[in-house]
Protein backbone atom coordinates (compact mmCIF):
# COMPACT_ATOMS: atom_id res chain seq x y z
CA UNK A 1 0.00 0.00 0.00
CA UNK A 2 1.66 3.16 -1.24
CA UNK A 3 0.74 6.44 0.36
CA UNK A 4 0.38 9.41 -1.92
CA UNK A 5 2.67 12.08 -0.50
CA UNK A 6 2.23 15.83 -0.97
CA UNK A 7 5.91 16.72 -0.86
CA UNK A 8 7.50 13.66 -2.43
CA UNK A 9 8.60 15.64 -5.48
CA UNK A 10 9.90 19.09 -6.20
CA UNK A 11 7.24 21.44 -7.57
CA UNK A 12 7.71 22.51 -11.19
CA UNK A 13 7.83 26.18 -12.01
CA UNK A 14 4.40 27.81 -12.36
CA UNK A 15 2.62 24.50 -12.60
CA UNK A 16 -0.19 23.02 -10.57
CA UNK A 17 -1.42 19.45 -10.57
CA UNK A 18 -4.86 18.33 -9.50
CA UNK A 19 -6.06 14.78 -8.96
CA UNK A 20 -9.76 14.13 -9.53
CA UNK A 21 -11.02 10.95 -7.93
CA UNK A 22 -14.49 9.87 -8.99
CA UNK A 23 -15.92 6.41 -8.91
CA UNK A 24 -18.34 6.95 -11.79
CA UNK A 25 -15.69 8.65 -13.97
CA UNK A 26 -18.38 10.78 -15.59
CA UNK A 27 -17.99 14.27 -14.27
CA UNK A 28 -14.20 14.20 -13.86
CA UNK A 29 -13.61 14.03 -17.59
CA UNK A 30 -15.72 17.10 -18.31
CA UNK A 31 -14.19 18.92 -15.39
CA UNK A 32 -10.70 18.10 -16.62
CA UNK A 33 -11.44 19.42 -20.08
CA UNK A 34 -12.59 22.73 -18.67
CA UNK A 35 -9.74 22.89 -16.19
CA UNK A 36 -6.98 22.58 -18.76
CA UNK A 37 -8.31 25.63 -20.55
CA UNK A 38 -6.67 27.63 -17.78
CA UNK A 39 -3.77 29.46 -19.36
CA UNK A 40 -2.27 31.47 -16.51
CA UNK A 41 -0.51 28.39 -15.14
CA UNK A 42 0.40 25.10 -16.75
CA UNK A 43 -2.11 22.74 -15.29
CA UNK A 44 -1.90 18.97 -15.08
CA UNK A 45 -5.01 16.94 -14.37
CA UNK A 46 -4.81 13.35 -13.23
CA UNK A 47 -7.97 11.27 -13.27
CA UNK A 48 -8.49 8.26 -11.09
CA UNK A 49 -11.36 6.01 -10.19
CA UNK A 50 -10.14 5.43 -6.69
CA UNK A 51 -6.96 5.34 -4.64
CA UNK A 52 -4.34 3.90 -4.39
CA UNK A 53 -2.92 4.97 -7.73
CA UNK A 54 -1.15 2.30 -9.77
CA UNK A 55 2.51 1.93 -8.93
CA UNK A 56 3.61 1.85 -12.59
CA UNK A 57 3.19 5.51 -13.45
CA UNK A 58 4.65 6.71 -10.19
CA UNK A 59 7.64 8.18 -11.99
CA UNK A 60 5.65 9.98 -14.63
CA UNK A 61 3.32 11.39 -12.01
CA UNK A 62 4.10 14.97 -11.00
CA UNK A 63 3.69 16.29 -7.50
CA UNK A 64 -0.04 16.49 -6.78
CA UNK A 65 -1.10 19.72 -5.14
CA UNK A 66 -4.78 19.06 -4.62
CA UNK A 67 -6.82 15.89 -4.34
CA UNK A 68 -10.54 16.19 -5.10
CA UNK A 69 -13.00 13.45 -4.25
CA UNK A 70 -16.08 13.78 -6.43
CA UNK A 71 -19.02 12.15 -4.69
CA UNK A 72 -22.22 11.48 -6.56
CA UNK A 73 -24.78 11.68 -3.79
CA UNK A 74 -27.28 9.53 -5.62
CA UNK A 75 -25.11 6.47 -5.09
CA UNK A 76 -24.00 5.11 -1.76
CA UNK A 77 -21.10 3.31 -3.46
CA UNK A 78 -19.68 6.60 -4.61
CA UNK A 79 -19.48 7.85 -1.05
CA UNK A 80 -18.10 4.56 0.22
CA UNK A 81 -15.31 4.37 -2.34
CA UNK A 82 -14.30 7.96 -1.57
CA UNK A 83 -14.17 7.09 2.10
CA UNK A 84 -12.15 3.96 1.35
CA UNK A 85 -9.68 5.90 -0.81
CA UNK A 86 -8.93 8.39 1.95
CA UNK A 87 -6.57 6.09 3.78
CA UNK A 88 -4.14 6.05 0.87
CA UNK A 89 -3.39 9.72 1.37
CA UNK A 90 -0.48 10.99 3.38
CA UNK A 91 -1.68 12.93 6.42
CA UNK A 92 0.12 15.92 4.98
CA UNK A 93 -2.62 16.26 2.43
CA UNK A 94 -5.19 16.98 5.05
CA UNK A 95 -3.57 20.32 5.72
CA UNK A 96 -5.75 21.91 3.10
CA UNK A 97 -4.83 19.87 0.06
CA UNK A 98 -7.93 17.67 -0.03
CA UNK A 99 -11.45 18.70 -0.85
CA UNK A 100 -14.75 17.01 -1.60
CA UNK A 101 -17.10 17.86 -4.40
CA UNK A 102 -20.68 16.65 -4.17
CA UNK A 103 -22.90 16.30 -7.21
CA UNK A 104 -26.64 15.73 -7.47
CA UNK A 105 -27.20 17.23 -4.05
CA UNK A 106 -30.56 18.60 -5.12
CA UNK A 107 -31.80 15.33 -6.51
CA UNK A 108 -34.96 13.89 -5.04
CA UNK A 109 -33.32 10.47 -4.90
CA UNK A 110 -30.77 11.60 -2.34
CA UNK A 111 -31.47 10.58 1.23
CA UNK A 112 -30.76 13.35 3.72
CA UNK A 113 -28.64 10.97 5.81
CA UNK A 114 -26.12 10.45 3.04
CA UNK A 115 -25.60 14.16 2.64
CA UNK A 116 -25.17 14.46 6.38
CA UNK A 117 -22.64 11.63 6.38
CA UNK A 118 -20.62 13.36 3.71
CA UNK A 119 -20.77 16.64 5.63
CA UNK A 120 -19.66 14.84 8.74
CA UNK A 121 -16.78 13.21 6.89
CA UNK A 122 -15.58 16.47 5.38
CA UNK A 123 -15.92 18.31 8.66
CA UNK A 124 -14.09 15.64 10.64
CA UNK A 125 -11.18 15.90 8.18
CA UNK A 126 -11.26 19.70 8.18
CA UNK A 127 -11.83 19.64 4.43
CA UNK A 128 -13.74 21.91 2.10
CA UNK A 129 -16.97 20.56 0.67
CA UNK A 130 -18.07 22.03 -2.63
CA UNK A 131 -21.36 21.40 -4.40
CA UNK A 132 -21.54 21.22 -8.16
CA UNK A 133 -24.19 21.10 -10.86
CA UNK A 134 -22.74 18.35 -13.01
CA UNK A 135 -25.68 18.35 -15.41
CA UNK A 136 -25.13 21.71 -17.04
CA UNK A 137 -22.16 23.16 -18.87
CA UNK A 138 -22.23 26.28 -16.72
CA UNK A 139 -22.20 24.08 -13.67
CA UNK A 140 -19.05 22.34 -14.86
CA UNK A 141 -17.33 25.61 -15.72
CA UNK A 142 -18.18 27.09 -12.38
CA UNK A 143 -17.07 24.00 -10.53
CA UNK A 144 -13.73 24.01 -12.31
CA UNK A 145 -13.38 27.71 -11.55
CA UNK A 146 -13.78 27.08 -7.86
CA UNK A 147 -11.42 24.14 -7.89
CA UNK A 148 -8.91 26.33 -9.63
CA UNK A 149 -9.22 28.95 -6.92
CA UNK A 150 -8.36 26.36 -4.31
CA UNK A 151 -5.73 24.66 -6.43
CA UNK A 152 -3.79 27.84 -7.06
CA UNK A 153 -3.56 28.45 -3.36
CA UNK A 154 -2.70 24.83 -2.66
CA UNK A 155 0.06 24.95 -5.27
CA UNK A 156 1.43 28.07 -3.62
CA UNK A 157 0.78 30.31 -6.60
CA UNK A 158 -1.14 32.94 -4.62
CA UNK A 159 1.06 35.23 -2.55
CA UNK A 160 0.34 35.73 1.13
CA UNK A 161 -1.88 32.70 1.57
CA UNK A 162 -1.42 29.01 2.20
CA UNK A 163 -3.62 26.00 1.66
CA UNK A 164 -4.02 25.63 5.39
CA UNK A 165 -5.15 29.22 5.79
CA UNK A 166 -7.74 28.96 3.03
CA UNK A 167 -9.06 25.65 4.22
CA UNK A 168 -9.52 27.13 7.66
CA UNK A 169 -11.78 29.71 6.10
CA UNK A 170 -13.74 27.37 3.88
CA UNK A 171 -13.71 24.24 6.02
CA UNK A 172 -17.03 22.42 6.06
CA UNK A 173 -19.05 22.61 9.24
CA UNK A 174 -21.81 20.33 10.43
CA UNK A 175 -24.94 22.33 11.10
CA UNK A 176 -26.76 21.33 14.26
CA UNK A 177 -30.18 20.99 12.74
CA UNK A 178 -31.92 23.76 14.59
CA UNK A 179 -33.01 25.23 11.30
CA UNK A 180 -34.98 22.06 10.58
CA UNK A 181 -37.50 22.94 13.22
CA UNK A 182 -38.30 26.49 12.35
CA UNK A 183 -38.32 26.12 8.60
CA UNK A 184 -40.48 23.19 7.61
Amino acid sequence: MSLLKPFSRRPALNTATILLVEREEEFQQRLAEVLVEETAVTLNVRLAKSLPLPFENQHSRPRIDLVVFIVNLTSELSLQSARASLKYLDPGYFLGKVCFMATNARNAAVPQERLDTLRGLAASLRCTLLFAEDQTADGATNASERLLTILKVAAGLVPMTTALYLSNLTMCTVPSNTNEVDFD
Partner: protein
Amino acid sequence: MEDQMKSLLRQLVRRIPIRFLKVTLEKWGRLTVAQQQNIDFTQTKWALADELIAYSEENRLTLRHITELEMIYVIDNPNQGMWHAFQLVDPESDAPAVELMQFKEQFKSHLNELVRNVSVKMKKNTDEAVWIRIAWGDSCSRPNNMRPTYVVHYLQTPYVFVTRLTSKQKTLLSQAMIIATRHQAIKDAHLSGRNFSAIRDLLMQEYEQVFPAKYPSALVERNQIAALPNIEREQAEAEVNRLQMACEAFGGGKLPQLQSVVYKLETKFKDPSNQTFTEREKPFNCVVTFTSKNLLESLRHCASSGIASTPITPLLSSIPRRGRNYFVITDKVSGPSSQINPTV
Protein backbone atom coordinates in the same frame (compact mmCIF):
# COMPACT_ATOMS: atom_id res chain seq x y z
CA MET B 1 -69.88 -11.67 -40.68
CA GLU B 2 -70.58 -8.13 -41.84
CA ASP B 3 -70.74 -6.52 -38.45
CA GLN B 4 -67.78 -8.52 -37.25
CA MET B 5 -65.88 -6.80 -39.98
CA LYS B 6 -67.26 -3.47 -38.85
CA SER B 7 -66.36 -3.99 -35.23
CA LEU B 8 -62.90 -5.18 -36.24
CA LEU B 9 -62.42 -2.06 -38.33
CA ARG B 10 -63.68 0.08 -35.47
CA GLN B 11 -61.28 -1.61 -33.09
CA LEU B 12 -58.43 -1.10 -35.54
CA VAL B 13 -59.18 2.58 -35.93
CA ARG B 14 -59.25 2.91 -32.18
CA ARG B 15 -55.93 1.07 -31.84
CA ILE B 16 -53.95 2.81 -34.58
CA PRO B 17 -52.69 6.27 -33.68
CA ILE B 18 -53.81 8.95 -36.11
CA ARG B 19 -50.27 9.64 -37.29
CA PHE B 20 -49.81 6.01 -38.40
CA LEU B 21 -53.32 5.65 -39.76
CA LYS B 22 -52.64 7.57 -42.95
CA VAL B 23 -49.54 5.60 -44.04
CA THR B 24 -51.09 2.29 -43.03
CA LEU B 25 -54.12 2.96 -45.17
CA GLU B 26 -51.90 3.87 -48.08
CA LYS B 27 -49.94 0.62 -47.73
CA TRP B 28 -53.20 -1.22 -47.54
CA GLY B 29 -54.29 0.30 -50.82
CA ARG B 30 -57.89 -0.87 -50.67
CA LEU B 31 -59.25 2.67 -50.76
CA THR B 32 -59.32 4.75 -53.92
CA VAL B 33 -57.04 7.73 -53.99
CA ALA B 34 -60.05 10.02 -53.89
CA GLN B 35 -61.34 8.30 -50.80
CA GLN B 36 -57.97 8.55 -49.12
CA GLN B 37 -57.82 12.24 -49.87
CA ASN B 38 -61.14 13.26 -48.39
CA ILE B 39 -60.66 11.38 -45.15
CA ASP B 40 -60.53 14.06 -42.45
CA PHE B 41 -58.04 12.87 -39.85
CA THR B 42 -58.85 15.64 -37.40
CA GLN B 43 -62.31 14.33 -36.55
CA THR B 44 -62.88 11.92 -33.68
CA LYS B 45 -61.92 8.28 -33.99
CA TRP B 46 -65.60 7.44 -33.73
CA ALA B 47 -66.59 9.53 -36.73
CA LEU B 48 -63.46 8.40 -38.57
CA ALA B 49 -64.44 4.75 -38.12
CA ASP B 50 -67.91 5.52 -39.49
CA GLU B 51 -66.38 7.10 -42.54
CA LEU B 52 -64.07 4.16 -43.17
CA ILE B 53 -66.89 1.69 -42.74
CA ALA B 54 -68.89 3.59 -45.32
CA TYR B 55 -65.99 3.45 -47.78
CA SER B 56 -65.29 -0.22 -47.26
CA GLU B 57 -68.95 -0.89 -47.93
CA GLU B 58 -68.72 1.09 -51.14
CA ASN B 59 -65.66 -0.95 -52.16
CA ARG B 60 -67.31 -4.25 -51.15
CA LEU B 61 -64.45 -5.12 -48.81
CA THR B 62 -64.67 -8.26 -46.72
CA LEU B 63 -63.30 -9.37 -43.40
CA ARG B 64 -60.13 -10.73 -45.00
CA HIS B 65 -59.26 -7.30 -46.29
CA ILE B 66 -59.64 -5.82 -42.86
CA THR B 67 -57.46 -8.52 -41.32
CA GLU B 68 -54.96 -7.65 -44.04
CA LEU B 69 -55.00 -4.05 -42.83
CA GLU B 70 -54.45 -5.27 -39.29
CA MET B 71 -51.49 -7.44 -40.31
CA ILE B 72 -49.91 -4.52 -42.14
CA TYR B 73 -50.19 -2.39 -39.03
CA VAL B 74 -48.95 -5.08 -36.67
CA ILE B 75 -45.98 -6.00 -38.84
CA ASP B 76 -44.97 -2.34 -39.00
CA ASN B 77 -45.30 -1.78 -35.26
CA PRO B 78 -44.87 -5.10 -33.54
CA ASN B 79 -43.82 -3.62 -30.20
CA GLN B 80 -47.13 -3.98 -28.45
CA GLY B 81 -48.35 -6.74 -26.24
CA MET B 82 -46.16 -9.44 -24.71
CA TRP B 83 -44.06 -11.52 -27.08
CA HIS B 84 -42.93 -14.96 -26.00
CA ALA B 85 -40.15 -16.93 -27.61
CA PHE B 86 -40.28 -20.69 -28.13
CA GLN B 87 -37.61 -23.04 -29.35
CA LEU B 88 -38.05 -26.01 -31.63
CA VAL B 89 -35.89 -28.98 -30.69
CA ASP B 90 -34.68 -32.26 -32.21
CA PRO B 91 -35.16 -31.50 -35.90
CA GLU B 92 -35.95 -34.33 -38.26
CA SER B 93 -33.47 -35.04 -41.00
CA ASP B 94 -35.50 -33.12 -43.53
CA ALA B 95 -36.07 -30.12 -41.28
CA PRO B 96 -33.63 -27.86 -43.12
CA ALA B 97 -35.36 -28.63 -46.41
CA VAL B 98 -38.68 -27.10 -45.35
CA GLU B 99 -39.70 -24.26 -47.65
CA LEU B 100 -42.45 -21.72 -47.50
CA MET B 101 -45.12 -23.29 -49.72
CA GLN B 102 -45.17 -26.64 -48.02
CA PHE B 103 -44.86 -25.03 -44.59
CA LYS B 104 -47.92 -22.90 -45.34
CA GLU B 105 -50.23 -25.68 -46.40
CA GLN B 106 -48.86 -28.14 -43.82
CA PHE B 107 -49.44 -25.68 -41.00
CA LYS B 108 -52.91 -24.69 -42.14
CA SER B 109 -54.07 -28.23 -42.73
CA HIS B 110 -52.77 -29.45 -39.37
CA LEU B 111 -54.28 -26.61 -37.51
CA ASN B 112 -57.60 -27.20 -39.23
CA GLU B 113 -57.44 -30.84 -38.25
CA LEU B 114 -56.95 -29.87 -34.62
CA VAL B 115 -59.63 -27.20 -34.46
CA ARG B 116 -62.46 -26.46 -36.76
CA ASN B 117 -63.26 -22.78 -37.23
CA VAL B 118 -59.84 -21.29 -37.19
CA SER B 119 -58.82 -18.75 -39.78
CA VAL B 120 -55.12 -18.49 -40.57
CA LYS B 121 -53.47 -15.79 -42.63
CA MET B 122 -49.78 -15.83 -43.56
CA LYS B 123 -47.59 -13.12 -44.94
CA LYS B 124 -43.90 -13.30 -45.72
CA ASN B 125 -42.10 -10.15 -44.77
CA THR B 126 -39.14 -8.72 -46.71
CA ASP B 127 -36.71 -10.03 -44.06
CA GLU B 128 -37.64 -13.69 -44.69
CA ALA B 129 -39.87 -13.65 -41.62
CA VAL B 130 -43.15 -15.52 -41.90
CA TRP B 131 -45.97 -13.72 -40.08
CA ILE B 132 -48.95 -15.83 -39.15
CA ARG B 133 -52.23 -14.40 -37.92
CA ILE B 134 -54.53 -16.89 -36.28
CA ALA B 135 -58.12 -16.10 -35.32
CA TRP B 136 -59.29 -18.84 -33.02
CA GLY B 137 -62.73 -20.23 -32.83
CA ASP B 138 -63.88 -23.57 -31.57
CA SER B 139 -66.21 -26.32 -32.72
CA CYS B 140 -69.32 -24.24 -32.09
CA SER B 141 -68.25 -20.62 -32.51
CA ARG B 142 -66.92 -18.74 -35.49
CA PRO B 143 -63.28 -17.54 -35.43
CA ASN B 144 -62.98 -14.50 -33.20
CA ASN B 145 -61.11 -11.89 -35.18
CA MET B 146 -61.05 -9.38 -32.36
CA ARG B 147 -58.27 -11.15 -30.46
CA PRO B 148 -56.05 -12.86 -33.00
CA THR B 149 -52.80 -14.61 -32.12
CA TYR B 150 -49.68 -13.53 -33.99
CA VAL B 151 -46.84 -15.94 -34.70
CA VAL B 152 -43.51 -15.06 -36.28
CA HIS B 153 -41.12 -17.75 -37.53
CA TYR B 154 -38.00 -17.69 -39.63
CA LEU B 155 -37.80 -20.91 -41.61
CA GLN B 156 -34.86 -23.19 -40.83
CA THR B 157 -34.33 -21.43 -37.52
CA PRO B 158 -35.44 -23.11 -34.33
CA TYR B 159 -37.17 -20.01 -32.96
CA VAL B 160 -40.85 -19.08 -32.89
CA PHE B 161 -42.19 -15.79 -31.52
CA VAL B 162 -45.76 -15.62 -30.33
CA THR B 163 -48.03 -13.00 -28.86
CA ARG B 164 -51.55 -13.13 -27.44
CA LEU B 165 -51.70 -16.88 -26.92
CA THR B 166 -53.76 -18.67 -24.29
CA SER B 167 -52.43 -21.88 -22.77
CA LYS B 168 -55.19 -23.89 -24.47
CA GLN B 169 -54.27 -22.51 -27.86
CA LYS B 170 -50.60 -23.00 -27.09
CA THR B 171 -50.79 -26.76 -27.23
CA LEU B 172 -52.65 -26.64 -30.53
CA LEU B 173 -50.25 -24.15 -32.03
CA SER B 174 -47.15 -26.07 -30.98
CA GLN B 175 -48.61 -29.27 -32.46
CA ALA B 176 -49.11 -27.65 -35.82
CA MET B 177 -45.78 -25.89 -35.63
CA ILE B 178 -43.79 -29.02 -34.82
CA ILE B 179 -45.26 -30.97 -37.68
CA ALA B 180 -45.04 -28.17 -40.18
CA THR B 181 -41.40 -27.47 -39.37
CA ARG B 182 -40.38 -31.13 -39.11
CA HIS B 183 -39.31 -31.02 -35.47
CA GLN B 184 -40.10 -33.37 -32.64
CA ALA B 185 -40.70 -30.94 -29.81
CA ILE B 186 -40.99 -27.29 -28.91
CA LYS B 187 -40.03 -25.74 -25.61
CA ASP B 188 -40.32 -22.41 -23.91
CA ALA B 189 -37.22 -20.28 -24.47
CA HIS B 190 -37.84 -18.30 -21.29
CA LEU B 191 -37.53 -15.06 -23.17
CA SER B 192 -40.36 -12.57 -23.35
CA GLY B 193 -40.89 -8.85 -23.61
CA ARG B 194 -42.82 -6.08 -25.22
CA ASN B 195 -40.12 -5.20 -27.71
CA PHE B 196 -40.35 -7.77 -30.48
CA SER B 197 -37.25 -6.78 -32.40
CA ALA B 198 -35.16 -6.96 -29.24
CA ILE B 199 -36.19 -10.53 -28.55
CA ARG B 200 -35.65 -11.52 -32.16
CA ASP B 201 -32.21 -9.93 -32.38
CA LEU B 202 -31.17 -11.52 -29.12
CA LEU B 203 -32.03 -15.04 -30.26
CA MET B 204 -31.00 -14.65 -33.88
CA GLN B 205 -27.79 -13.01 -32.70
CA GLU B 206 -28.33 -10.00 -34.86
CA TYR B 207 -26.24 -7.72 -32.69
CA GLU B 208 -22.52 -7.13 -32.47
CA GLN B 209 -20.80 -9.68 -30.27
CA VAL B 210 -17.29 -9.16 -29.03
CA PHE B 211 -14.76 -11.93 -28.68
CA PRO B 212 -11.29 -11.95 -27.21
CA ALA B 213 -8.75 -11.79 -30.00
CA LYS B 214 -4.99 -11.40 -30.36
CA TYR B 215 -5.30 -8.19 -32.19
CA PRO B 216 -6.58 -5.17 -30.24
CA SER B 217 -10.27 -4.94 -30.99
CA ALA B 218 -11.94 -1.81 -32.26
CA LEU B 219 -13.16 -1.18 -28.73
CA VAL B 220 -9.90 0.26 -27.58
CA GLU B 221 -9.73 2.87 -30.29
CA ARG B 222 -13.44 3.53 -30.16
CA ASN B 223 -13.21 4.36 -26.50
CA GLN B 224 -10.01 6.36 -26.58
CA ILE B 225 -10.74 9.66 -24.88
CA ALA B 226 -9.67 12.71 -26.84
CA ALA B 227 -6.27 12.90 -25.28
CA LEU B 228 -5.58 16.48 -24.31
CA PRO B 229 -1.90 16.90 -23.56
CA ASN B 230 -2.07 17.36 -19.83
CA ILE B 231 -4.99 15.20 -18.84
CA GLU B 232 -3.77 11.83 -17.62
CA ARG B 233 -5.89 8.83 -16.72
CA GLU B 234 -4.19 7.02 -13.90
CA GLN B 235 -6.06 3.74 -14.25
CA ALA B 236 -6.49 3.79 -18.01
CA GLU B 237 -5.61 0.20 -18.85
CA ALA B 238 -7.75 -1.21 -16.06
CA GLU B 239 -10.58 0.74 -17.60
CA VAL B 240 -9.96 -0.70 -21.06
CA ASN B 241 -9.95 -4.19 -19.61
CA ARG B 242 -13.22 -3.61 -17.83
CA LEU B 243 -14.74 -2.35 -21.04
CA GLN B 244 -13.43 -5.33 -23.00
CA MET B 245 -14.89 -7.72 -20.45
CA ALA B 246 -18.20 -5.91 -20.35
CA CYS B 247 -18.48 -6.00 -24.11
CA GLU B 248 -17.54 -9.65 -24.24
CA ALA B 249 -20.30 -10.37 -21.79
CA PHE B 250 -23.05 -8.19 -23.22
CA GLY B 251 -21.92 -7.35 -26.75
CA GLY B 252 -20.70 -4.17 -28.36
CA GLY B 253 -22.38 -1.33 -30.15
CA LYS B 254 -26.13 -0.96 -29.89
CA LEU B 255 -27.73 -3.77 -27.95
CA PRO B 256 -31.25 -5.22 -28.23
CA GLN B 257 -33.65 -3.24 -26.10
CA LEU B 258 -34.47 -5.93 -23.60
CA GLN B 259 -36.53 -4.34 -20.85
CA SER B 260 -36.70 -6.74 -17.96
CA VAL B 261 -35.13 -9.82 -16.44
CA VAL B 262 -36.66 -12.01 -13.77
CA TYR B 263 -34.74 -14.21 -11.36
CA LYS B 264 -36.73 -16.66 -9.32
CA LEU B 265 -34.65 -17.54 -6.27
CA GLU B 266 -35.29 -20.90 -4.68
CA THR B 267 -32.20 -20.88 -2.51
CA LYS B 268 -31.68 -21.44 1.15
CA PHE B 269 -31.85 -18.29 3.25
CA LYS B 270 -28.43 -17.52 4.70
CA ASP B 271 -28.05 -14.82 7.30
CA PRO B 272 -26.19 -15.44 10.55
CA SER B 273 -28.13 -12.68 12.27
CA ASN B 274 -31.48 -14.21 11.40
CA GLN B 275 -31.55 -17.76 12.81
CA THR B 276 -35.22 -18.56 12.29
CA PHE B 277 -35.02 -18.25 8.53
CA THR B 278 -31.58 -19.77 8.19
CA GLU B 279 -32.65 -22.95 9.95
CA ARG B 280 -35.59 -23.50 7.65
CA GLU B 281 -35.18 -26.60 5.50
CA LYS B 282 -37.20 -25.64 2.48
CA PRO B 283 -35.71 -22.97 0.20
CA PHE B 284 -36.60 -19.36 0.60
CA ASN B 285 -38.51 -18.25 -2.48
CA CYS B 286 -38.34 -14.76 -3.83
CA VAL B 287 -38.43 -13.08 -7.22
CA VAL B 288 -35.94 -10.44 -8.32
CA THR B 289 -36.83 -8.32 -11.33
CA PHE B 290 -34.55 -5.92 -13.14
CA THR B 291 -36.20 -3.42 -15.43
CA SER B 292 -34.76 -0.69 -17.59
CA LYS B 293 -35.30 1.04 -20.91
CA ASN B 294 -32.45 -0.98 -22.28
CA LEU B 295 -31.37 -3.51 -19.69
CA LEU B 296 -28.37 -4.94 -21.52
CA GLU B 297 -26.86 -1.55 -22.12
CA SER B 298 -27.31 -0.53 -18.51
CA LEU B 299 -25.75 -3.77 -17.36
CA ARG B 300 -22.85 -3.24 -19.73
CA HIS B 301 -22.40 0.25 -18.41
CA CYS B 302 -22.49 -1.08 -14.85
CA ALA B 303 -19.72 -3.50 -15.69
CA SER B 304 -17.58 -1.12 -17.73
CA SER B 305 -17.83 1.64 -15.16
CA GLY B 306 -16.98 -0.81 -12.42
CA ILE B 307 -20.24 -0.49 -10.56
CA ALA B 308 -20.64 -4.21 -11.08
CA SER B 309 -17.49 -6.17 -10.35
CA THR B 310 -15.68 -7.99 -13.16
CA PRO B 311 -15.41 -10.78 -14.22
CA ILE B 312 -19.13 -10.59 -14.64
CA THR B 313 -21.16 -13.15 -12.77
CA PRO B 314 -22.84 -15.74 -15.02
CA LEU B 315 -26.12 -14.68 -13.46
CA LEU B 316 -25.94 -11.56 -15.62
CA SER B 317 -23.79 -12.61 -18.54
CA SER B 318 -26.05 -15.55 -19.39
CA ILE B 319 -28.89 -13.20 -20.33
CA PRO B 320 -27.46 -12.57 -23.79
CA ARG B 321 -25.34 -15.71 -23.83
CA ARG B 322 -28.32 -18.00 -23.49
CA GLY B 323 -30.88 -15.58 -24.82
CA ARG B 324 -33.36 -15.68 -22.00
CA ASN B 325 -34.69 -13.32 -19.39
CA TYR B 326 -36.29 -15.70 -16.95
CA PHE B 327 -34.10 -17.71 -14.59
CA VAL B 328 -34.68 -20.00 -11.70
CA ILE B 329 -31.80 -20.05 -9.26
CA THR B 330 -31.47 -23.02 -6.94
CA ASP B 331 -28.78 -24.12 -4.53
CA LYS B 332 -26.24 -26.44 -6.01
CA VAL B 333 -26.43 -29.68 -4.08
CA SER B 334 -22.67 -29.52 -3.56
CA GLY B 335 -21.28 -26.24 -2.35
CA PRO B 336 -23.14 -23.14 -1.28
CA SER B 337 -22.67 -21.10 -4.44
CA SER B 338 -25.89 -20.68 -6.36
CA GLN B 339 -26.16 -21.69 -9.97
CA ILE B 340 -28.59 -21.28 -12.81
CA ASN B 341 -30.78 -24.15 -13.78
CA PRO B 342 -32.94 -23.97 -16.85
CA THR B 343 -35.87 -25.47 -15.02
CA VAL B 344 -39.58 -24.79 -15.35
